[in-house]
């Protein structure tokens, strides 16, 4: 994994009536990391501790190699934070607000203005940035919140539920933007969500917590690539009254193992095979064409992270209604 960006060791946070974090130990490297958990799992509490704003009851944590207990101010100079709640004054423009926040991070006046213009453009705000924030849509407000977290060019950003309140399109745009924060801007990201599904496309690594305890921490490629599966469904013809069977036999003859998709919608008509890259797609297309059958669908059935975690409330909720 290379360098460690965030490391916690047996980190606990106990409030009088709840244990928000329970002996959490994780190592997080550069890239985009998803922090997933149901409501109350302890995600926001972890971020507050990592920013050095709330002392841990027990255990220790480091961010960018700095101890959160003693180096809070140094950490906050190098990281950005986008809170989960609204935090924007409605009566100032995005530009004025972000410039002010840049100066609060120590940027000199000219640099603050230049970086604000750049950053707002990067998050996709143009003319509207001169209008008061009060008139913005939720999606635009989320972009302003993201911009104020990025304006001082941090090494790492904490994004607390950035897709909250967005419609599916807005959500996809925000996730794309988050991906770019790492790929284009070179900034590592810790992003929280209670939706497991949406993070798998965006994150290199996912940490799942439940009730303040670590459920699992692994890279998304671990769960997904190893289980990439093709689902195929074909029509029947007069020559091949059972098209599905014909395809299976033809593929078998070429040394490809095929399972029938029992348990899936349309079971009996769906074939599942492990995709070994582009060749598999070509092979399947050729086989079907040779047999003169029609292809109803051929799609990647990546297992969702949610299916990997069968335990935990969130996982169960999330597993419903998913499956590409």
């Amino acid at each position, binding site marked *: 994994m290379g360098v460690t960006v965030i490391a916690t060791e047996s980190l606990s946070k106990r409030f009088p009536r709840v244990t928000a974090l329970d002996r959490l130990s994780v190592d997080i490297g550069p890239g985009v990391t998803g922090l997933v958990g149901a409501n109350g799992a302890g995600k926001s509490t972890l971020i507050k501790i990592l920013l050095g*704003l709330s002392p841990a009851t027990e255990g220790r944590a480091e961010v960018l190699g700095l101890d959160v207990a003693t180096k809070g101010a140094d950490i906050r100079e190098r990281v950005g934070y986008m809170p989960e709640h609204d935090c924007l004054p409605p009566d100032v423009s995005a530009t004025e607000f972000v410039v002010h926040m840049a100066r609060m991070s120590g940027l000199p006046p000219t640099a603050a203005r230049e970086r604000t213009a750049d950053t707002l453009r990067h998050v996709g705000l143009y003319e509207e940035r001169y209008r008061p924030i009060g008139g913005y849509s939720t999606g635009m407000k989320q972009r302003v919140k993201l911009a104020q977290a990025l304006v001082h060019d941090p090494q790492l950003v904490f994004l607390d539920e950035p897709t909250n309140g967005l419609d599916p399109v807005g959500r*996809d745009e925000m996730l794309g933007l988050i991906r770019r924060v790492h790929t284009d801007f070179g900034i590592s990201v810790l992003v929280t969500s209670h939706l497991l599904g949406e993070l798998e496309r965006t994150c290199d690594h996912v940490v799942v917590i439940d009730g303040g305890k670590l459920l699992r921490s692994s890279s998304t490629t671990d769960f997904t690539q190893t289980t990439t599966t093709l689902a195929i469904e074909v029509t029947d013809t007069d020559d091949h009254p059972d098209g599905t069977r014909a395809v299976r036999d033809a593929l078998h003859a070429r040394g490809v193992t095929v399972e029938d998709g029992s348990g899936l919608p349309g079971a009996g008509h769906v074939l599942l095979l492990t995709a070994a890259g582009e060749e598999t797609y070509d092979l399947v297309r050729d086989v079907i064409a040779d047999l003169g059958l029609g292809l109803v669908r051929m799609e990647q059935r990546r297992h969702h992270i949610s299916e990997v975690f069968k335990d935990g409330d969130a996982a169960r909720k999330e597993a419903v209604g998913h499956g590409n």
Partner: protein
Amino acid sequence: MATEQPTATAAGDQTRIHNIGYRSYDGPRLGRAYARRSLYSQSLRGAYGLGRSAKSKVLPMLLFVVMCLPAGIMVAVAVATKANELPLDYTRYAIVLQAVISLYVAAQAPQSVSRDLRFKTVPLYFSRPIETSDYVRAKYAALASALFILTAAPLLVLYVGALLAELDFADQTEGFAQGLVSVALLSLLFAGLGLVVASVTPRRGFGIAAVIAVLTITYGAVSTLQAIADVQDSSGAVVWIGLFSPITLIDGVQSAFLGATSAFPGGTGPSNAEGVVYVLVTLGLIAGAYGLLMRRYKKVGL
């Protein structure tokens, strides 16, 4: 990802601008002290509506004019009539115009702190290198400075006018200096009280009402009680009662130490010994206000 892919068809220009590469920042990061100064100047400007909407400039500017206008008139009269003294002492000016000052504090203290609480901007500040004390000091210093500008400007008008009218230079300079010390103390005290009250409520309307109540109801109660005590010939009581409202507190301090005539009923302010108590109570309130603000914002945190 729609915003990211430049396509020949879709909104060409914007998309292309969007794709100008990310530039990292290698310039200086000026740290806490700079951030505190920036917050101070932003808040001070904000207290006069500068850098904010035209609407938010109206009240503070109006009050500023109302504050300076009487001084201008007095000066004009003094120059025209070749008077040998100003109609009003420097130290009395703020006492006479206390209603205007109270109104200003009531409007601007909530503007300065309630907004950050109401719109939950406070956590954004504390996610940066600045600490609670930086935030509190910047906000406190900004409102105190704004009040000092409001109260010292008319004194400056009087002073310049007095010199134009060729009144005694030494006399006028001493009076002006005493007036400045007095309004500096008043600014610190009123700013502290106003901010403490405003920081308790995120609702601006409540904040305004509460600040007015604290400043004017105490004054009303104190001056009524003082009047009763004076009628009953108990001048000792008049002095001690004066400790319980901000403006009579300032009045007491300046009549004991800054050569001011007392506005207390009967015209007798505190003696020097009593004046020390006045000073201590004033400084105690200022320190107490700072302490309470620190406690308040420690709690707000994230």
